[in-house]
């Protein structure tokens, strides 16, 4: 296989990881969750690009060597981009407003909407709706987080 082909395949693999991570992985699996397959794929891409740039077939022209070297640099760059995003992101969370989160406080009457676009509130649901007489586990969906 030509050095340029190796380089292009390698950079394509390395570039696919950040792209797929944003488009699919982060939303389906979660940001920062189980990223080792991503890292393994990037490593494979860099290895293939490196194979083209550092071990080109005998007789490879200078221009092809340059292209292969650029592909290797781009592969490493995509790996860095992925690492910057997944490792640089903060896992720390702000403290809640404790004055609002005191034990014994009642369900609020803040208006929210159901999936069928009906206006309601936790207070209303607990008095007359589907939550009447029930204990409640309330949590907050952060999307892909």
């Amino acid at each position: 296989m030509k050095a340029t082909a190796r380089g292009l395949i390698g950079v394509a693999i390395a570039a696919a990881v950040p792209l797929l991570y944003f488009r699919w992985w982060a939303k389906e699996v979660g940001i920062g969750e189980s990223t080792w397959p991503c890292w393994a794929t990037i490593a494979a891409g860099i290895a293939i690009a490196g194979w083209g740039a550092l071990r080109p077939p005998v007789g490879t022209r200078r221009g092809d060597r340059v292209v292969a070297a650029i592909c290797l640099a781009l592969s490493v760059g995509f790996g860095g981009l992925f690492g910057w995003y997944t490792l640089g992101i903060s896992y720390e969370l702000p403290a809640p407003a404790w004055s609002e989160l005191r034990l014994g406080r009642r369900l609020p009457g803040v208006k929210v909407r159901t999936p069928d676009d009906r206006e309601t509130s936790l207070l209303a649901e607990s008095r007359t709706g589907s939550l009447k007489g029930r204990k409640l586990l309330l949590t907050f969906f952060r999307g892909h987080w």
Partner: protein
Amino acid sequence: MRELRGLQLVLDGVRAAGGEIVVVSKDSPAELAELAQEHELAFLLLSDPDLALVDAFGLRHAGADVFRGGDLARPAVLFFDSSGELSDFFLTDNWRQRLRGEDAIARVRAMR
């Protein structure tokens, strides 16, 4: 999505303990309807696009929505007893740590 699927898995246990699960999101009602259908979620989803309910509990996480921009709720699980009083809560300092399903059921069961 894994978090929602996890909640669906413990829903029967929570209901057997006398509880219900409610999930609040900044997604629109239409988005929540699609989400519930796609993932076959049987618990109540509520749309809070302005985070008014999130603010009522002091749980706003400024700048956390890196995909759409804006704020999100800080990860938290609140437990209200059958009279509607906040009885317990789970907060983490690291969003990768989540309440385990069996712990959630146990906390619901422990409430009056």
